[in-house]
């Protein structure tokens, strides 16, 4: 390995955790490309714990204090703030190793928060830190290393020839471990070479898999965190903590965690094979389900199902069976599936046999049907390279789907693509385009990898492409690409995607079945209530450091018949588990109402943060036509009876109308419905019609800090 050179070293006294907190965070600044490095251990106040809880809440609070309203993502003061939250790092309940990274995003120009599993968050906590903030910019490539046993932080210069993620991660596990047994004590956050040019740069969090004898990667993929990491010239953040016992959080009552945790382990063992198959297949079990309900994105979200669907029956990915595939200790849901011994056919690693982490559903759909490809081997290969180069597979797939459609519409041609024929299904050329994103030498690949919003501008300005058409079909909101569910037939999910804090991912709400199939949300008030409850409930996971999946990807076998209506979808028994675990760790009792209140504080704080950054108002909650309904006749004709019916419901007789007119009538109707939805949701959230939290709302939530009120006074 290329030699590392020590640039700076700081000693600290690792503070033991007490009831889930150390009440300290580490703040590292890399200077202004001038070598003025600094490293401080700073206190976490009681007020910060009370109002922000941890995780994403701490991330937002710390980032707020680092940046100004004029800060841009590539300014040195932008920080990556990584925090687990009070529950993060227990091992007695499945899915408790999650960590959130908060930063100003290149894609959206506002705050982003992205979560990953892997061991970094728990080890960082056990090393004495409730959060790690890294700001500034180095003048050469650096590695930041925290040794939680010795109590030392070291900054190294390092210039490896290959800066891609698997290479960097493996090298650093080797370098910082004394022997094979020691490798599990290390976790690395890295990115890849594509992140040096692309705005889709992902953060890869590692955990060492002792059976396979190699580090595995879990992605905090979305929002461009990897791009920020590489802009700071950081190759990797590394933490080491030996002898992890599972009780480092020093919980108030371990027996509660054991009782609730073993209950869920039992439920998973008994139910997973008849529910979501997470242990055998992971989230890719959704491929067939989504196809059956017209929700699978095919060809840039144009269609919801495809006749070749059985080609991507998830059993065909060949996930290795019989391994303990949790991305943190204690996760019996074990959905971090992998394909082992996969021989790569293209790219710089051609001919090598590798372990591929995934594909998970989002990748299976994005680097698959959404670009018109139904070939598991292609998806696995693309998945590997996206992770290795550090491209967010979701934005990458949705972005490539947009490119394919532009190509097929003739908006861009081979002249612009530097010779690539980028039709839907163009396996070789699409993979080639992914490879070209790695080194930044291809001007077209560079344009593409800055995301759909930039593509729309650059395709129009540079290639003369029709902007209006691109606005209609480009599946982005607030600058972020949509994740892999078609929402057009679920009005509630329009909001679930496009009335979000950070753009159209689905970690706030997934309401498609509840709305479109079950018909449980008939009125705007019902939809607004769901778009209040679920985003706030799910945000709570990000405050305490737990994974969403064990909430509802397995449920008690009587959940559906014991609880009526929407209550069943909340999985009340699992909510109760979280309340008990929270108290078991922190010693503080929590009710269901207080849980939502904890979230609501941070939800609104984040909204106001975005307002402070010049966004965060109604005009930034954009939704493209494709998300609302068919844009072109072939989309309508694929389900003409269905859409004719929808047009009738909207009060128009479709008889004898040309398809184009039907499309524009339905689009106009749905636009009006969208505006009504926005009104209802803002009102339920305690916001003005402009989408700004009211003074009463921030006072009720206790986040009426002077700096918050100042933003509201200036912008509200």
């Amino acid at each position, binding site marked *: 390995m290329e030699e590392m050179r020590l640039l700076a070293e700081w000693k600290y006294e690792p503070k033991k955790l007490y009831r889930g907190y150390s009440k300290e965070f580490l703040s590292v600044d890399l200077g202004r490309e001038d070598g003025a490095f600094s490293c401080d251990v700073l206190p976490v106040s009681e007020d910060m714990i009370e109002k922000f809880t941890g995780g994403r809440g701490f991330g937002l609070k710390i980032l707020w204090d680092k940046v100004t309203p004029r800060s841009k993502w590539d300014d040195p003061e932008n920080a990556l703030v990584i925090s687990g939250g009070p529950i993060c790092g227990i091992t007695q309940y499945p899915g408790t190793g999650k960590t959130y990274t908060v930063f100003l995003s290149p894609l959206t120009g506002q705050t982003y928060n992205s979560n990953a599993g892997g061991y970094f968050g728990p080890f960082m906590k056990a090393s004495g830190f409730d959060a790690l903030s890294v700001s500034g910019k180095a003048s050469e490539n650096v590695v930041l290393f925290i040794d939680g046993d010795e109590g030392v932080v070291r900054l190294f210069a390092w210039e490896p020839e290959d800066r891609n993620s698997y290479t960097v991660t493996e090298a650093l596990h080797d370098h910082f471990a004394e022997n094979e047994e020691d490798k599990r004590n290390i976790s690395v956050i890295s990115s890849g070479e594509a992140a040096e040019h692309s705005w889709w740069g992902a953060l890869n969090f590692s955990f060492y898999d002792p059976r396979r004898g190699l580090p595995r990667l879990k992605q905090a993929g979305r929002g461009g965190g990897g791009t920020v990491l590489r802009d700071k010239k950081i190759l990797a953040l590394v933490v080491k903590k030996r002898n992890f016992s599972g009780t480092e959080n020093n919980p108030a009552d371990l027996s509660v965690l054991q009782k609730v945790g073993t209950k869920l382990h039992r439920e998973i063992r008994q139910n997973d094979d008849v*529910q979501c198959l997470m242990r055998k297949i992971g989230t890719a079990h959704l491929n067939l389900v989504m196809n*059956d309900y017209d929700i699978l994105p095919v060809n840039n979200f144009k269609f919801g199902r495809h006749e070749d669907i059985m080609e991507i029956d998830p059993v065909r990915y060949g996930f290795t069976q019989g391994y303990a595939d949790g991305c943190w200790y204690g996760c019996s849901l074990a959905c971090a599936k992998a394909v082992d011994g996969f021989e790569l056919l293209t790219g710089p690693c051609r001919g090598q046999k590798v372990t591929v982490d995934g594909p998970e559903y989002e990748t299976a759909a994005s680097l698959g049907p959404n670009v018109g490809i139904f070939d598991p081997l292609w998806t696995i290969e693309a998945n590997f390279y996206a992770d290795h180069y550090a491209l967010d597979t979701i934005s990458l797939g949705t972005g490539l789907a947009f490119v394919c459609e532009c190509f097929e519409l003739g908006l861009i041609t081979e002249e612009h693509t530097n010779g690539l024929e980028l039709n839907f299904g163009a396996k070789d050329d699409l993979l080639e385009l992914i490879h070209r994103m790695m080194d930044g030498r291809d001007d077209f690949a560079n344009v593409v990898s800055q995301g759909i919003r930039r593509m729309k501008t650059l395709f129009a300005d540079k290639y003369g492409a029709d902007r209006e058409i691109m606005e209609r079909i480009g599946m982005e909101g607030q600058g972020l690409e949509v994740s892999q569910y078609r929402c057009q037939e679920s009005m509630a999910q329009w909001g679930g995607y496009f009335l979000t804090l950070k753009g159209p991912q689905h970690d706030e709400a997934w309401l498609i079945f509840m709305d479109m199939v079950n018909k449980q949300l008939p009125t705007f008030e019902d939809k607004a209530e769901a778009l209040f409850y679920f985003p706030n409930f799910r945000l709570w996971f990000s405050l305490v450091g737990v994974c969403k999946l064990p909430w509802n990807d397995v449920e008690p076998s009587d959940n559906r*018949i014991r609880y009526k209506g929407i209550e*069943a979808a909340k999985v009340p028994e699992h909510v109760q588990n979280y309340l008990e675990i929270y108290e078991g760790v922190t010693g503080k009792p929590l009710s269901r109402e207080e849980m939502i209140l904890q979230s609501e504080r941070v939800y609104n704080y984040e909204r106001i943060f975005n307002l402070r950054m010049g966004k965060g108002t109604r005009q930034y909650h954009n939704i493209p036509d494709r998300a609302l309904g068919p844009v072109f006749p072939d989309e309508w004709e694929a389900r003409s009876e269905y859409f004719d019916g929808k047009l009738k419901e909207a009060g128009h007789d479709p008889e004898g109308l040309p398809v184009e007119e039907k499309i524009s009538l339905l689009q106009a109707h749905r636009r009006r419905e969208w505006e009504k939805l926005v009104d209802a949701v803002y009102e339920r959230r305690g916001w003005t019609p402009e989408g700004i939290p009211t003074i009463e709302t921030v006072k009720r939530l206790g986040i009426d800090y002077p700096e918050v009120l100042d933003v509201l006074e200036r912008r509200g």
Partner: protein
Amino acid sequence: MILVNGKEIPWRKGMTIQTLLDECGYTFRMIAVWIDGTPYRNDQFEKVCIEDGADVQVLHMISGG
């Protein structure tokens, strides 16, 4: 006629919960079926016949998303 999630669907004699799910294309595994306010377990889907005029709710849980 029966009502399925508020929509009218033709009734046939001998129609079980499972045949209804098959006809509607409801293949998801996490489904709760309530008929006139009474819930049925998955292992009853093949056996339970639906009466004419029944109000059926086929509730899909959230998962994955």
